[in-house]
């Protein structure tokens, strides 16, 4: 007996059988209505509550992540501000050591110059001409009445002549004296200029120091804002971090391009050294060797930058003893220099191998080989590039540090965003399941609407019977 036969209640009439089964099903569903409603509702609530809880816990995780991001951001900002302030103090220190250490000498110079000017000034003071001693005698004689006496007239004439001569001599002497004073005063001019210049220099230095002090004040204000974790400081740091992320990412892309050029420059000649047909995994050994050389160069560049305290990726290097650090600078620089030399030689070899291959291909194609024009230009160009690129790659350390630091913040922000989105989706899913439960309950009732309708009719009649007034009730 197959299942179809089993379902066929009325043989030969599948429609009737189906109708009977449907009625049976509706009746069964009607009987199980209350527990079914409870099951659907409870299941939807369980899912909804679970989703809500999950959403809450995700939001909590997001909050703690945001908090951690903020702390990382503030720590990075604080460190950056500290470095900037430290640098400003170093600059001030340098200015003070360079300029103000010579201040006593400057003061002595100024004092000497002032003394000289003072002395010259005293020397140049105008001395009144000595009053002529004979003025009183002239006055007396001038009162003598002598117009009629020729002797007196002669004497007076002589006196006049003498007086005029004396006057001219006095004027000449006065002019000479004035000339000497002017000469002394003109000798003072360079001293004045020196004095002015010296004072200007002092003014500039003091002005520079004032500017530095202003910068330090601003930085200190920023530092204070970061330390107190103000929202504005956080926003500024976040924005700065995003900018750093983009810029350093761009710089790293450029460096990556340089590394690819470098790789192509040395991959072919490396096959001459390590063999062209051997493989490490799916990669040619020569390519891996070229890549290793480039990576070693980048690593040496990182160590060099660390040793120079330009970057702070490896605190252990930065905190080394100065002597050891200097030694490390020289060691890394020497290795870089050797690698640059090796690359330059490899670039030369590449040019030769490429030329040889080209010649072979020409001979195989039976083509006329034209003589190379200025063939030394690409050779030298490749050699120079081979020498320069390792040093250029050294500077990758700077954008790399910025990228690593900025990516912490950026990745944190991205993760926080993802968590927020996840929390929203969980909540949304929970709510959808909740409403779906209600919807299913209604659909359930819709399926069993005939018995429900009958039930309602019966109930209504029962209520009407219950509230139907007894005979005589309306008679008061």
């Amino acid at each position: 007996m197959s299942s179809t036969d089993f379902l066929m209640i009325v043989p030969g009439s599948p429609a009737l059988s189906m109708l009977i089964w449907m009625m049976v099903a509706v009746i069964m569903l009607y009987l199980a209505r209350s527990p079914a409603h409870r099951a659907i509702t409870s299941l939807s609530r369980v899912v909804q509550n679970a989703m809500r809880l999950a959403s809450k816990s995700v939001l909590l995780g997001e909050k703690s992540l945001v908090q951690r991001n903020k702390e990382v951001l503030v720590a990075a900002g604080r460190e950056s501000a500290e470095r900037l302030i430290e640098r400003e103090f170093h600059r001030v220190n340098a200015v003070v050591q360079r300029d103000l250490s010579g201040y006593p000498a400057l003061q002595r110079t100024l004092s000497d110059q002032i003394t000289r000017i003072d002395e010259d000034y005293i020397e140049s003071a105008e001395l009144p001409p000595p009053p002529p001693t004979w003025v009183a005698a002239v006055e007396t004689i001038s009162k003598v009445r002598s117009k009629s006496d020729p002797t007196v007239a002669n004497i007076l004439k002589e006196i006049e002549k003498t007086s005029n001569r004396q006057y001219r001599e006095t004027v000449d002497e006065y002019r000479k004296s004035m000339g000497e004073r002017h000469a002394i005063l003109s000798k003072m001019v360079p001293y004045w200029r020196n004095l002015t210049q010296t004072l200007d220099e002092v003014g500039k230095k003091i002005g520079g120091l004032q500017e530095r002090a202003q910068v330090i004040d601003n930085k200190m204000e920023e530092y204070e804002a970061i330390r107190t974790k103000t929202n504005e400081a956080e926003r500024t740091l976040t924005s700065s971090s995003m900018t750093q992320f983009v810029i350093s990412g761009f710089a790293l892309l450029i460096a990556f391009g340089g590394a690819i050029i470098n790789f192509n420059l040395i991959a072919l000649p490396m096959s001459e050294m390590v063999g062209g047909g051997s493989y490490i995994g799916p990669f040619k050994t020569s390519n891996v060797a070229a890549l290793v050389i480039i990576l070693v160069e980048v690593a040496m560049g990182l160590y060099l930058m660390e040793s120079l305290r330009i970057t702070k990726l490896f605190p252990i290097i930065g905190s080394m003893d100065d002597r050891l650090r200097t030694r490390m600078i020289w060691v890394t620089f020497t290795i870089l220099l050797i690698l640059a030399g090796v690359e330059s030689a490899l670039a030369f070899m590449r040019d030769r191998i490429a030329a040889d291959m080209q010649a072979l291909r020409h001979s195989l194609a039976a083509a006329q080989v034209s003589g190379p024009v200025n063939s030394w230009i690409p050779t030298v160009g490749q050699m120079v590039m081979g020498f320069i690129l390792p040093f250029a790659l050294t500077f990758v350390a700077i954008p790399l540090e910025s990228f690593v630091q900025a990516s912490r913040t950026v990745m944190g922000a991205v993760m926080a965003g993802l968590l927020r989105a996840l929390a929203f989706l969980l909540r949304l899913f929970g709510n959808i399941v909740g409403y779906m439960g209600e919807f299913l309950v209604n659909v359930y009732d819709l399926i069993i609407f005939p018995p429900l309708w009958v039930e309602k009719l019966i109930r209504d009649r029962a209520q009407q019977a219950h509230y139907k007034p007894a005979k005589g009730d309306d008679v008061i």
Partner: protein
Amino acid sequence: MKKKAIIPILLSIGVWLTGCADTTSRTKGVYMLLDTSGTYKNELDKARSIIYYLLGTLEPGDTLGVARIDTGSFSEKDLIAKDTFDRRPSVSNSQKRLFRETIEQFVSTAKSSPYTDITGGILQAVEYLNETGAGNKYVLVFSDLKEDLRKGYIRDFPIEMSDVNVIALNVTKLRTDNIDPREYMDRLAYWEKRTVDAGGTWRVMNDLERLDTLLAG
């Protein structure tokens, strides 16, 4: 704590590197058979350009052998030139130059053979390629695929050509093929069946302008 973390990282790197130690040979071994029978000898100029193409394409570490198909080809005597190119490109280039000279000399002095022992040539090629240990083996048959064995030569037995790619080049149509093209089709089908039954792969390339796809795949 950091030291503890470093040890598993180093171990993982070690395991990864060990996993990378791929022992599969990626070198190519190419053996080209040149039919010198009858009028097909006139096609040798085309064969030369194919060999030159191979010389320009094969990389250091690859192997190239060129042999003629004559009355009895299952013999080292028919080998015109063979070489496994050095892993250093400069040495490899010198080897290719010598190879080219040998081929040039052969093409200018080649004599027509009365019989065509293709099976013997293929057997010789497979044997040679297996000895080289090349990862990818190619047998290029530059012939019209019309086998013509001398009386007494036995070649109708199954041959073993596992992992060998057989490529028939410049399979020219004979006069009889023009009368009944089924002969040509049957000839191709016969060699394809023999190759596939022997565990190899079969390909026909008559358009010599598309040599760049010769060793692809």
